[in-house]
């Protein structure tokens, strides 16, 4: 029943123009610095089935690792998660900010609404029903596109990362044209994950309590802790704001259709008036909906992305902090061993390993965090400028509509 097929390259035009004008692809949040031409990844196509979305991942590359220069594979959300987890679990990448995994596609709300609409079909007029259906479909499509965008952003981030782009798993992900046969985590694994997280957060508190020797990291730590919380708050608030904006737009829509019904009751002067106002509201509500959608795209999605990205950065700091604690512990152990003159070599080795690990993490982490900031500033700039421009565009559109409508209405009276 639910088969949405969107060819993102061409398909955007026939969708409701949620995104079409801004970017041709649903690159909602552009968080990357310049990508070079040696490896370009995008999602060229996506297919939504009942409970899964199939993404066609399209790669263009001049790297010698790949057999061809250009190829496509079909991937599902779980495979993205697998790729992400493989990065996280790889000790080699402990010093990097692992690009946050894309959120799970969630069409439940939209689907539920559509179902409700089907149930309520009898209680509304045909026009209303059609209108509502169109709206919901548009909403569904918007969510769909956002989902696709999030997945694409993840891949682009990886492809742009100097180290991660060379990852073997990533290459397999891009090239292997069969199912990767990754499965979702089973219950036991989920429980393990849960415990790991509990331990990690408890440990995180512990680790965070340790005074960092490096001012840069000390500063980054406090900053990220605060930033993460605030961006989380802002993200939640922006969601609420946008939701009520959408509700208001929906109300205007319903008002427009009721006015229309009122206007079609007969053909008196006042009815013509109603029709005109209805027409106006119909247009303004489209603009209002666009405003809400654009705020969603430019603001909420940006914040959401940075919520996850800052979490990833925090994770990096945690890993570094952990390594630092390990290093210090190893130092202490070495001291003890020397004092007792027992297992000194072993302690020395482990101390060296810890030291190396810590230093390696610190070294790459510093660059990563600096990059993170640069990326963040650039992304915010781009999105805020676009947001302001879109707001202006919509407000001006609205203004013009209102002015011309008022002109007509006043001319009539």
């Amino acid at each position, binding site marked *: 029943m639910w088969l949405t097929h969107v060819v993102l390259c061409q398909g955007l035009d026939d969708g409701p123009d949620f995104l079409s004008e801004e970017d041709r692809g649903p690159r909602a949040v552009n968080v990357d610095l310049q990508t070079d031409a040696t490896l370009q990844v995008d999602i060229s196509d996506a297919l939504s089935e009942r409970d899964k979305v199939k993404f066609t991942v399209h790669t263009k590359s001049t790297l010698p690792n790949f057999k061809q220069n250009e190829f496509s594979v079909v991937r599902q959300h779980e495979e993205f998660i697998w790729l992400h987890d493989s990065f996280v679990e790889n000790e080699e990448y402990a010093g990097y900010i692992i690009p946050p995994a894309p959120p799970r596609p969630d069409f439940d709300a939209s689907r539920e609404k559509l179902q409700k609409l089907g149930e309520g079909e009898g209680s509304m007029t045909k026009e209303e029903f059609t209108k509502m259906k169109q709206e919901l479909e548009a909403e569904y499509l918007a969510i769909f596109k956002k989902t696709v965008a999030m997945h694409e952003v993840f891949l682009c981030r990886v492809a742009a990362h100097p180290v991660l782009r060379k990852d073997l798993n990533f290459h397999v992900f891009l090239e292997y044209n069969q199912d990767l046969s990754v499965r979702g985590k089973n219950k036991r694994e989920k429980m393990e994950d849960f415990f790991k997280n509990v331990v990690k957060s408890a440990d995180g508190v512990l680790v965070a309590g340790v005074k960092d020797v490096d001012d840069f990291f000390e500063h980054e730590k406090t900053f990220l802790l605060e930033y993460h919380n*605030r961006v989380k708050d802002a993200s939640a608030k922006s969601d609420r704001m946008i939701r009520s904006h959408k509700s208001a737009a929906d109300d*205007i829509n319903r008002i427009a259709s009721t006015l229309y019904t009122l206007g079609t009751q007969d053909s008196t002067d006042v009815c013509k008036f109603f029709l005109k106002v209805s027409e106006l509201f119909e247009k303004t509500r489209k603009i209002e909906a666009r405003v809400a959608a654009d705020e969603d795209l430019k603001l909420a999605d940006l914040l959401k992305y940075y919520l996850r990205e800052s979490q990833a950065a925090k994770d990096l700091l945690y890993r570094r902090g952990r390594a630092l604690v390990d290093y210090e512990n190893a130092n202490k152990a070495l001291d003890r061993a020397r004092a007792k003159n027992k297992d000194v070599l072993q302690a020395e080795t482990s101390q060296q390993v810890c030291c190396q690990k810590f230093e390696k993490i610190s070294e790459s982490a510093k660059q990563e965090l600096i990059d993170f900031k640069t990326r963040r500033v650039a992304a915010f700039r781009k999105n805020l400028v676009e947001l302001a421009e879109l707001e202006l565009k919509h407000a001006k559109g609205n203004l013009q509509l209102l002015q011309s409508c008022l002109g007509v209405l006043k001319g009539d009276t």
Partner: protein
Amino acid sequence: MDPSLSASDIASSTKPLSEASSPPVMDLLSEPASEASSAPMVDLLMEPASEGSSAPMVDILSEPASEASSAPMVDLLMEPAREGSSAPMVDLLMEPASEASSAPMMNLLMEPASEASSAPMMNLLMEPASDDLKEPPKPDIDPLADILNDTPLSEVKTPVAAMPQETPSDLFDDEPSELFAEPRQSNTAKQQQTSIFDEPDEDLFSEPLGEASKNPQNDFFKEALAPVAKASNVCGPLSDNYNEHPTDIFTEEAMTTLPSAVSTVSVNSKTNGVHSDEEEPDIFAEATVELSLDSPRNDRKKKGAAKPSAPAPAPSVSASASKPQPKTLEELEEEVEDKFELNISITNPEKVGDGMNAYMAYKVSTQTTLPMFRSKTFTVRRRFSDFLGLYEKLSDKHTPNGYIVPPPPEKSIMGMTKVKVGKEDNSSAEFVERRRAALERYLQRVVFHPSLLQDPDVREFLERDDMPRAHNTQALSGAGFLKMINRATDSLSKMTIKMNESDVWFEEKLQEVEAEDQQLRKLHIMVDSLVGHRKELSVNTGGFAKSVAMLGSSEDNTALSRALSQLAEVEDKMEQLHQEQAASDSFCFAELLADYIRLLGSVRASFDQRMKTWQRWQDAQNMLQKKRETEAKLLWANKPDKLQQAKDDITEWEAKVTQYERDFDRVSATVRKEVLRFEKEKARDFKKQIIKYLESLLQSQQQLIKYWEAFLPEAKAIA
């Protein structure tokens, strides 16, 4: 004008006497009338069924569109459409015509005995006559009052002014002065009293009166309505000398008034006026004249009825007699609106008292050029229940007549309690403002209603300093009020099933009103929801603004931090903007809808009222039918002792039927007029308010543009 047509119409609507009856009527008109003494007349009245000749008479009386008058009347009443007049005219035609024939005749019937000449006259003209009359049964007062109270009244009035002059000169030479004096007085007295007149100004009255004295004839022709013309004719003689004047009624009238009519007809077509004046003479006297004049009369009626109170400027031209009138009532009202200035504003809501006995008092300021007020500007203080009390008074008086009385805002226990408790928060301030505005609109609607403005209670409300406290407003307020409307709606729908609607217009209008009511309710819910969402949006935007400000403060890139705090500022302003917009959603749009939902309740009530009067008429008709059957049985059984009683009953019920029918016609006409007025007001209100609303939207978009334009360079400055 073929009798067969009309006869068939009658046959369908009334009893099968029709064909048989017209000859006797002709007889009545030509022969017996000339020699008639009081006896036959009394017979006619008293024993309608027993005597051949009287039967038609009775018909005439009980069913205005009956056989005696068949040709002209029926045409008038039953087939206006065929005559080329449009549908809505039916009603207009019905009313004056039916009243015309019935009212005076009622008098005839009711007062067989001679009375003081002034009394019946008074009767016709004003209500107070009831005191003077001992004999006449009640029905006769009511119909008169009715005549006076409803639209045709205005027509009635002028003719009356003119008539006395004419009648005496034509009919009796003995007591002209009395006749003169009284009716005219009553006219003027009435003018002030009754609220029906659209124009409080002297114009209407002075003009016809003046003309009446100068040129009674013309005036008479142009303005007079049949009923009164006839009424005075008929009544005069009756009261004067019953024994002699029946002759006068039929013969002399035909000779005196008719001739003039005829002459005018032949000279020029100004006859229209004459004709309507002279429905009665027509009926009784000359079928030929009627025939020839019938269609012009229709024309005239159309126009005259459409706008009865318009003073016709040119007395002598018939074409113009009908043409000067086409101004519709509405136009007239507009003229009236132009003529005076009446601004009412409600300001300074003030809490009086403490605790649960506290109430809000409002300053009601009036500024006017209307002469009916004592001064040009005055101010009174009124509390909410006073407004409810005013509505109650107006509703009691005017709703039964089919008027749409604007309803006041509902009582809100929630809102008021908040105010009483003395919370000075936003919502209670908003509540007070909302109510103030609603009361202002309510009062403006009342004074804009030409009839209601004339009501002494309105004047008292606006002028009087010490207003007696209104009681029992509780029943009307809040839920009670809604319940009342719902009840009215229920009974209305029930009645609709029963009512065999004779007029498509009403049926369609009622459906329209109901559909509109439904849509408006729906719309209101949605606008309310929009207001709610907009408020929510405002709150959430505020929350977001704070959040962004925090984010900005923790951002360590200076330019980005600055941009974020700028964004926070923009969002702060947006919060304000959304809030203002929510307020204007609510004040401009939602309140307008709430007003009109209430008003539609009143509209439905007036339809309901019409239905009720119809029901009463039908019931009376059924009753009459029963009484007749009883009589027939008695006649058959040959029980003369009870026969008299039965006849009395019939007479009584005939009178009631006539009166109720007239009531119905009158209420119908009023409802129609009121609905048209209402629709016009509605169109005006909606246009005005929605334009205002759109302007508020426009303004907030302009603000929005300003804010974002200021922000854009900040965003671009991020580096």
